């Protein structure tokens, strides 16, 4: 590949990326409190949830629909351990409750991972979806922990302050956690463990032949995915001040999947890009008379269009644009595959079944 093509390609990713980071850091100055809280902060934690899905899909080849259930387990555990309306009467300090919530989600993730990690591809998707929907019914049924009313007025750490009147703190927390998750996953991908996971994604049988314990690797990856999802669950409880089975139902599971697909299922950045589009659309269409209450039809149609026309999502479209211009401006076609995460744009849906 020619040098200039590489430079142009890089500029296409780094330019908007840096601009986005700058806008986000200065967001409390640029946007109204309402927009900061209702769209940007919401998009950040939805993005974390979608990132847990994209991490599993892009790096391990496991498309999981159980991530919302895992974040629900973190959120419900936290909400039940602190003072709140509904749920258990325990009233802990919010910080240890948060820690236990995260641990509970990771433990659940490892357990579900142990069961599901021997299944691949579409089977894995079905099993995680079934577990996810069962979790929703569980919290709906068990009134000791939630019931359909959910847990309301959850006590949050003082640092969160009031998300309506004073949204900056929670915004910066969500931003910080998002950045940490992003950098952590990018770092992990270069460690021997991360490379082994990508090996499992590409060819489980060959990895087994090389002596790797494939089910164990997949189980640990699922546990890591649960960790990332649990951050989203905790922040969503801090943001909503409540959690109910409605927060983790099938529609929510699909929302997170829609976000991941709109952003691009095989690029980590896509999680937050998709989440911003989703949250902004949600906010914008609520005011439109034509759309009115039919937000889900609109989102379903957009989702359908993306799946049919651009399986790589918005990041895939951007990749195409970047490729086009780097070819034009450098005057010769860049040799694909280009280095870096663009390699992951290859769909892994048809990962081989165990024989």
């Amino acid at each position, binding site marked *: 590949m020619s040098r200039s093509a590489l430079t142009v390609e890089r500029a296409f990713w780094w330019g908007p990326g840096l601009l986005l980071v700058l806008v986000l850091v200065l967001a409390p100055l640029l946007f109204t409190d309402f927009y900061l809280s209702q769209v940007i902060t919401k998009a950040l934690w939805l993005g974390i949830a979608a990132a847990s899905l994209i991490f599993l899909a892009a790096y391990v080849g496991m*498309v999981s629909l159980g991530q919302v259930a895992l974040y629900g387990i973190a959120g419900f555990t936290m909400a039940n351990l602190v003072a709140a309306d509904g749920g258990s009467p325990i009233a802990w300090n919010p910080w240890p409750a948060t820690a236990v919530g995260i641990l509970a989600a990771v433990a659940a993730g490892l357990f579900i991972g142990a*069961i*599901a990690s*021997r*299944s691949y*591809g*579409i*089977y894995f*998707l*079905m*099993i995680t*979806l*079934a*577990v996810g*929907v*069962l979790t*929703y*019914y*569980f919290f709906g*049924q*068990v*009134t*000791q922990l939630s019931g359909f009313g959910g847990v309301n007025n959850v006590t949050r750490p003082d640092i969160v302050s009031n998300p309506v009147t004073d949204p900056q703190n929670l915004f910066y927390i969500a931003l910080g956690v998002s950045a940490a998750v992003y950098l952590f996953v990018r770092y992990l991908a270069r460690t021997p463990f991360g490379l082994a996971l990508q090996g499992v994604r590409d060819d489980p049988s060959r990895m087994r032949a090389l002596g790797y314990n494939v089910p164990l690797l997949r189980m640990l990856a699922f546990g890591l995915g649960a960790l990332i999802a649990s951050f989203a669950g905790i922040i969503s409880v801090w943001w909503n001040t409540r959690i109910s089975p409605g927060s983790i*139902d*099938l*529609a929510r599971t*699909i929302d997170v*999947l*829609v976000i991941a*697909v709109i952003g691009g299922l095989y690029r980590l950045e896509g999680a937050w890009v998709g989440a911003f589009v989703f949250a902004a659309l949600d906010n914008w269409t609520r005011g439109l008379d034509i759309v009115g*209450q*039919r*937000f*889900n*039809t609109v*989102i*379903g*149609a957009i*989702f*359908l269009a993306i*799946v*049919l026309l651009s*399986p790589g999502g918005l990041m895939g479209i951007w990749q195409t644009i970047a490729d086009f211009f780097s070819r034009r401006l450098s005057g010769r076609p860049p040799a694909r595959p280009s280095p870096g995460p663009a390699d992951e744009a290859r*769909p892994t*849906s*048809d990962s081989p*079944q*165990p*024989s």
Partner: protein
Amino acid sequence: MNGAASAAAPDWRSRLATVPVGQLALRAAVAVVVAFVAAWVAYKAFGDPRTFVIVGLNGLTLAGLYFVVASGFTLIFGLMRVVNMAHGSLYMLAGFFALELQTTLTGGEATSAFGSSQAGLGDWIIPLVVACLAVGVIGLVMQQLFLRWNQGQELRQALITIAIGIIIADQTLAHFGGIAESLAAPDAFPESVDLPFSNLTYPFFRIFVLMVAIAVGLALWGMIQRTRFGMIVRAGVDDRQMVSALGINIQLVFASAFFLGAVLAGLGGVLGGTMISVDKANDTQYLLISLIVVIIGGMGSLAGAALGALALGLVDSFGDVYLPAGYTNYSILLIFGLLVLVLAVRPLGLFGRPA
């Protein structure tokens, strides 16, 4: 197992030696759990045989309904590897179509919320046929318009059906509202039947659902084992490309199978709508049921679907009644336990085969 005990013993021992210790411990644990559950049910059954009979019949009839729905799901998956995530939505849609039509036909007098009301035979059969055909056509259009040109891309097809499911759910809410109602059963049927050897009576319609399920099961089995269409389907499950290479119009077979699968979802929707209720939450519920039945039974297997439906129906109905008082709202955990138990021993389900 086979032959004289002296001949079987060394064979058994050598087979045991090839099973890893972990697997052995797992199987032992599963056996202990199954034995414990059987003992508990037997203990409860001797304490109150009348409840046992009624709850057992509830479980069997529920299993019949689950089988009708899941057989369509497993038929589509077995042949085309399409996980139809809109299967629950088709079920729900058929219920609402039938309800709407029956209300029109009877002038809105026969239906009532959860009543055991009755309508003329035609006022039940016409909605049944129309709803089944309408849902079948919707399934067919879905397959021809969106799925046909994405063959082999399992994940993409699952995402497409999810998107369609979102749109169907939202439009159903818009057009039919969210009130749960049940269809009126035909007045040509008796309301209840006397059970032999006891003075118990049982709702006739539930027995009718079980009979329909058995008929559907036998018809599908006969079709798959005895007819030319079934032969092509069986061959298609094993090797799609080879079948089309032999000059068989596999697209026609795919389209018919998808139509049939959707009709079965519709049949389930009308039966379930009469036996239980028509509700906007049906889509999630019956998607979950279809998923669990085929995960337990093994995907694409008709016998597996029957066994899975039986297990789920019995666990569902006994769980609500036989759990110790105060714990009945944890019954959803039993279904989760069933899933875990089966997947721990057989990751591909009871009758599952590697793809």
